[in-house]
């Protein structure tokens, strides 16, 4: 069931992204509002699929160990949030991308954001459904914690915001090369990069903090130089540099766009590189 819905959502994100592109190229406001509706509808279906998987995940766990009372039930519900393996993380990453795209579109009404966000969300979801094991696995002891929920949500909202900053940065750099008209003027794009980077930085910091508190309660060390921790710290350094360059030195335009691109490379290294190349608590292997 869930996978069929997500298949439809993938397609809807793709079409919405392409419609935004069409609306951008031919400045067609009606196409744009249709694309906006499609993106919103797909996000709603995506949310539904997320909760459906949550229910399925809960049912599977409750069959093994039925909760005794209300608190045990609540505990099990929180623990079984579908954010515990690579597939689930990709689905949620895509959800965050679509969600933040809608948020930014609401604030800035810039069509190219829809192109970037829709295509990135669709791509992520397509990769999740085609290339990754999607079965629901029982939860291993290390992940049975109330911190899982808040830690993963904050981290992925951060990643998604950095993804949008990257998209805007890339467009800025391409535009600076070709100087095509019709796309929004560089000053606006520059502000968008900064805005998205700020949101990403706040959420990444919250993600690192919640992770540290979790590690302290689970393993007695709030920081143990696990490869994922180190990589997230590198990412944090890069975006801290971006924000300082911008806020204190007043850097704008191309250097900031480059930093947003480099920063997202660090995000990808944190998310995928570390998980697959290096062993550790955060590895998605086995």
């Amino acid at each position: 069931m869930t996978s069929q819905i997500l298949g439809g959502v993938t397609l809807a994100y793709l079409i919405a992204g392409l419609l935004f592109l069409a609306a951008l190229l031919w400045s067609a406001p009606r196409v744009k509002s249709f694309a906006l509706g499609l993106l919103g509808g797909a996000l709603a279906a995506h949310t539904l699929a997320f909760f459906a998987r949550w229910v399925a995940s809960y049912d599977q766990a409750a069959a093994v160990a039925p909760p005794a009372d209300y608190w045990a039930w609540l505990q099990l519900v929180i623990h079984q949030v579908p954010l515990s393996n690579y597939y689930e993380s990709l689905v949620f990453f895509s959800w965050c991308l679509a969600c933040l795209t809608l948020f930014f579109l609401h604030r800035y009404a810039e069509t190219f954001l829809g192109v970037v966000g829709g295509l990135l969300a669709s791509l992520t979801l397509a990769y999740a459904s085609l290339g990754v094991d999607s079965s629901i696995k029982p939860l291993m002891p290390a992940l049975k914690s109330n911190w899982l929920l808040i830690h993963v949500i904050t981290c992925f909202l951060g990643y998604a915001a950095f993804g949008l900053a990257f998209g805007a940065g890339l467009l800025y750099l391409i535009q600076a090369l070709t100087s095509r008209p019709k796309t929004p003027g560089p000053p606006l794009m520059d502000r968008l990069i900064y805005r998205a980077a700020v949101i990403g930085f706040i959420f990444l910091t919250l993600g690192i903090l919640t992770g540290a508190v979790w590690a302290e309660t689970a393993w007695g060390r709030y920081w143990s130089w696990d490869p994922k921790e180190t990589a997230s710290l590198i990412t944090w350094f890069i975006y801290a540099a971006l924000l300082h360059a911008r806020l204190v030195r007043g850097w704008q335009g191309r250097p900031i766009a480059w930093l947003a691109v480099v920063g997202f490379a660090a995000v990808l290294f944190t998310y995928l590189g570390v998980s697959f190349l290096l062993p550790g608590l955060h590895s998605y292997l086995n």
Partner: protein
Amino acid sequence: MTQAPSSTSLPGRLWRTLTSLRLTLVLLIILALVSLVGTVRVQVFDTAWFLVPLGLFVLNLTACLIRGLPRAVRRSRQRLTPAAALELPERARFSWPESLNPHPGVEKALHRELGPVQKSNEDDRLVYFWERGRFRPLGPYVVHLSLLVILTGALLGKFLGVQGSLSLNEGEVSQNFVSAGKEKPLDFKARLDDFQALYYPNGAPREFRSDLIFIKPGQAPQQAVCRVNDPVTFGGFTFYQSSYGHTVGLEVKNGDNSLILEAPVGRTVELPGGRAHFRVLEYRPDLVMPGEQGGPGKRLGPAARLAYWEDSNHHPWIIVLLKNRPELADQQPGPYRFFLKDAKFFSVLQVKRDPGVWWVYAGFILLLPGFYLAFLRPTERWALVLRRKPSGGWDARLLGAAPRAREAFQDRLQRLQAILPKGGPA
């Protein structure tokens, strides 16, 4: 007041370097690069390659804090006064005819757009003024202060904290734990009553739990359950479930001499005389061998595999012990005969005391208002100045500034420009 060091003297130049943003950016990049190496070589975080830039980073943060904090405090203590409001840059100008009394409409419009506004009479002018985000200048300093607090906690933990591990067999009592290769005493006793490893139907681990009892002289013994993700604190130390294994009970015979030994899986045990050693490599509570042609498996009962060697130059022999087949011991090499008797769990607990943790947490909490002030609370100031025209009617000037929130400012300016000349909302 202290005199700022002059910019040409050596201390002056040093101070400027320490407070410069260029240093911050260079240090952030160096720290990022060293950390990149650290993803593969964790040891790098204990070397000068990491600690020197980190120390400079702390100096840089502190210097910036000393330089900028007093000014930020001063600025955030200055409320917007009517006189200061009149100095804001002008954004729009309009007037109303004699027939219209603008005051009620204007107040309503400003209240709707900005919330409660203040009002003041200055000479012949009436000034409405409003501000938000007065404390914004403090934001970055609160963030930097919280980073220093976190690093202080890390230092305290490194130098005053204790970390070690405690390995207990089921039923065993201990008053010591091992830290950095040395035994350290606890001022209480810890006993492992029971250890359980639970599994899902597919064989994946579900839960590991140690049932502990802490005994302190003069106090009632206290029971506690320690699980992964669910540590136990007693007597100033925190215990974390970190590992487990089996301890195998063996009878070792050499001729007429018989010896009962307990051997944890994976640990080398020396036999009396000092020449022969063995190590239990693996223990299975119930060894199942495949049945013939896919039939039901054959259950052989408890089994252990051990390595036995007589002196370190020799290759070890691998010996398999089956509890239910003691007669197989005759095939064992060497003078010793090993018999498998029983087995129980041992549990490894991480033991920790870290006085820096509360500093770290305090830093985390301080970071939140810092971020709120720095990023989500930009300073914004508005003023509307009304002056009676000599010819009757009113002149109005709209003033305002929001250097860090230009978009929101422009949007608001447009809305106010649309509504104010009409004398307020319809």
